[in-house]
């Protein structure tokens, strides 16, 4: 057996691939589910926080800034582990999937809040003034004039951040979630062969290349130059 044969047998083994393909496919399903749940919850919470912050209640803003900075500073893996192993101590039992979902959503919310906030503050002051002189109050101006423009201005950084956090779903394997990486790792330990990891890499590419392309499309379709 040459080195090349050994390499091929270990990483591109057709028999092993066929045997573990259903498990990896299941893992893809879990990854997609987790990613969608994180995107929806994270972006919604981030937008909500940014809107709250725009209301200008000082004490509330301090709290928002503190929480946002906290979750931007903590490594995602630490947050996942803290939630998974820490919350049971106060009798909140989350399984791995929901622990990972909560952790990644909190982190995406923190980053998204900063991005939305940057968008809100970069809407020119003239837009507020034009709206006020047309007879609009603060809330109407904020929701009908400022926010729609802010969101369109921040599409590119938001897409970037969203892609980055959805790749973080691989960290859920640490808390025994059978998503792509988790499924592949358990396949490796059963088959004593690295082929499932190759398949995992292929599965991530199959999932995330379309996501990246979709991000590009969203940017050209909805984004504004500032």
């Amino acid at each position: 057996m040459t080195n090349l044969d050994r390499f091929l047998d270990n990483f591109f083994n057709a028999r092993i691939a066929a045997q573990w393909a259903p498990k990896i496919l299941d893992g893809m399903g879990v990854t997609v589910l987790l990613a969608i749940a994180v995107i929806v919850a994270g972006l919604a919470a981030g937008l909500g926080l940014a809107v709250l912050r725009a209301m200008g209640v000082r004490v509330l803003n301090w709290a928002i800034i503190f929480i946002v900075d906290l979750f931007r500073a903590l490594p995602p893996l630490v947050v996942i582990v803290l939630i998974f192993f820490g919350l049971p101590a106060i009798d909140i039992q989350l399984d791995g999937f929901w622990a990972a979902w909560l952790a990644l959503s909190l982190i995406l919310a923190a980053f998204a809040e900063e991005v939305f906030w940057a968008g809100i503050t970069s809407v020119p002051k003239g837009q507020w003034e034009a709206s006020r002189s047309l007879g609009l109050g603060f809330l109407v101006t904020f929701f009908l004039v400022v926010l729609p423009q802010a969101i369109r201005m921040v599409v590119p950084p938001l897409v970037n951040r969203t892609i980055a956090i959805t790749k973080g779903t691989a960290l859920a394997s640490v808390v025994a979630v059978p998503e792509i990486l988790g499924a592949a790792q358990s396949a490796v330990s059963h088959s004593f062969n690295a082929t499932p990891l190759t398949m995992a890499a292929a599965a991530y590419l199959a999932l995330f290349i379309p996501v990246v392309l979709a991000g590009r499309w969203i940017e050209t379709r909805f984004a504004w130059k500032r």
Partner: protein
Amino acid sequence: MSVRITGLSRRFNGQAALDDVSLEIARGEFTALLGPSGSGKTTLLRVLAGLDFPDAGLVEIDGRDVGQVPARERRVGVVFQHYALFRHMSVAENVAFGLRVRPRATRPAAAEIDRRVRELLELVQIPELAGRFPDQCSGGQRQRIALARALAIEPLLLLLDEPFAALDAVVRKDVRRWVRGLHDRLGITTILVTHDQEEALELADRVAVLDRGRLAQFAPPATLLEAPATAFVAGFLGEASCIPARLSGGRLESPLPGLAAPPAWPDGALRLFLRPHEVAVEAGPGPGLVRMVHPSLGAGTRVVLELEGHVLEGVVPPGLPVPERGGPCGLRALAATAFHEDGSRARLA
């Protein structure tokens, strides 16, 4: 609607942007606020719009003190310098917006709003742009959209903040004549903020000249040119050059020959303001040094020259030889407006 401003002051970090400004504008009048940047004209406009609040003084619109009235309740239409159009809305939506967001009690029916938007877009001559977005329109078109949007709320007072500054020179002339024509048809009291004297003098019934936060003069354009109230107004309007001079023993000491001393003035320093047509230039030897020569239609040849370190502009009458650039020339003052250091003014000839 009439506007009355009394003793208005506004300070920013101790700097006075407006300093005790009082003026009264009649119903239907077209007024210009003219001044260099930093003179307080935009601050005054923002105070009128309710976007800024004075530290002292009174603003009355149609007899009502609006000091505590927020911008959204003033019914003052504003066309902003960069138009501030809502770029996520179509042109028609921009114009309709001020009506659509009104409380139900005062909001016109949807069909009525559509009709009014169509009417306004026709009024500003861009009905074909209704479905486009501001980013797809030219500068001149955006200006018309901004105007239609400001007019949609049926303002009592229309404020224009440097509305022509972003347009190129040719379009600007067209658009400003059109704006004046629109004012004459609609009769809305209008206040224009500008740093461009040509614009102010051409458009306005009366012009308020602001100098570092103070009202220097408020008068019809012809009066500003013929009888400037202060040295600042004389220097700011009508391309005048300024030459220092002295009165001593009743004699005028000026680098420029041709002027008689003003009668009955005490001795002291003077400033002479001369418009180009008040300085006659002739080819040949003389104290002037020719810096630039440019022909102008009908009125002779304009010459920019230097005299004892002062730059001034003069005219060579039509038909006479024109001096060469870089060479000497003779010159004589035909008339001038003089300001004494004590503030009094006289026409000299």
